[in-house]
């Protein structure tokens, strides 16, 4: 065990700013990416459902790349 107390743990031998600055920003970046991925999924479904409803329940109009 490296730490005698929680205070010592959070202090990181005086390097708290650098250590927690690194871990904190990494954590935020990961959470933000996950939120964006799930929001994109929701937005895609909403958009495609609306698009299809506008076209009377048929699949969205074929795009030029539909032949392959």
């Amino acid at each position, binding site marked *: *065990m*490296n*730490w005698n107390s929680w205070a010592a*743990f959070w202090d*990181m*031998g*005086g*390097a708290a*700013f*650098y*250590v927690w*600055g*690194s*871990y904190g*920003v*990494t954590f935020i*970046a*990961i959470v933000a*990416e*996950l939120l*964006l*991925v*799930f929001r*994109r*999924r929701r937005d*895609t*479904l909403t958009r*495609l*459902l609306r*698009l*299809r409803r506008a076209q009377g329940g*048929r*699949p*969205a*109009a*074929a*795009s*030029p*790349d*539909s032949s*392959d």
Partner: protein
Amino acid sequence: MTMQSSRGFHLFHFAAPNTFYPLAGRLAPWFAGLAALLAALGLWLAFFVAPTDATQGEVYRVIFIHVPAAWMSMFVYLVMAFWSGMGIIFNTRLSALMARALAPTGAMFCFVALWTGALWGRPTWGAYWVWDARLTSQLLLLFLYFGYIALTEAIEDPRRGDRAGAILALVGAVNVPIIYFSVKWWNTLHQGASVSLTKAPSMAATMLWGMLIMALAAWAYTIAVALWRVRSLILERERHTDWVSAELDRQGARP
């Protein structure tokens, strides 16, 4: 949608978007769970098992995210280049979507590597940033990621966007070995590799284990997020097909 498990397993079976879509949906949560478990184990090793560094003190603990993030940022770019090449050679629809799905995660890890490097550099070198070969080539990698994302998003015709992105990914891949070997080729402030295939690692075993487990966590995370993201890309791209229509029915019927 049922998996064809009888009479021989065909890997290429899953190269079709309509079979890969449900497979990705089933696999992603497992990789996400694995990433969470590995990260918990890695962080425990990083903070409670790995000893204080004799010369750097506690600040070295940044290594447990810095090195895995830097590895991932390079590796993801190479995987993007691989899928881009596959897409160009075999003209497979899914390849370019995989490359597109990986780019934001690669960029995220690239940013994390640069950020944590800056915060580690300040107390050990006395500067957040220096224009040395390793740091500069890693910054170039971040711009390559941004360039790839901007280029593929900007081109209206999706298949043309795929091709333009593929060329950028393949040409930019030259930068990856430059990053990796920069500490050997140039006299850099950045230290050499702590772990290499040719010599024993220059660090304590518990530090090494912590770093490797965090790297595995980053792998599992990347796979999970890329699979989730590619599902949205597949739906967009295949929206004119009957199977997407059926999937929309299922999703739309949900409360």
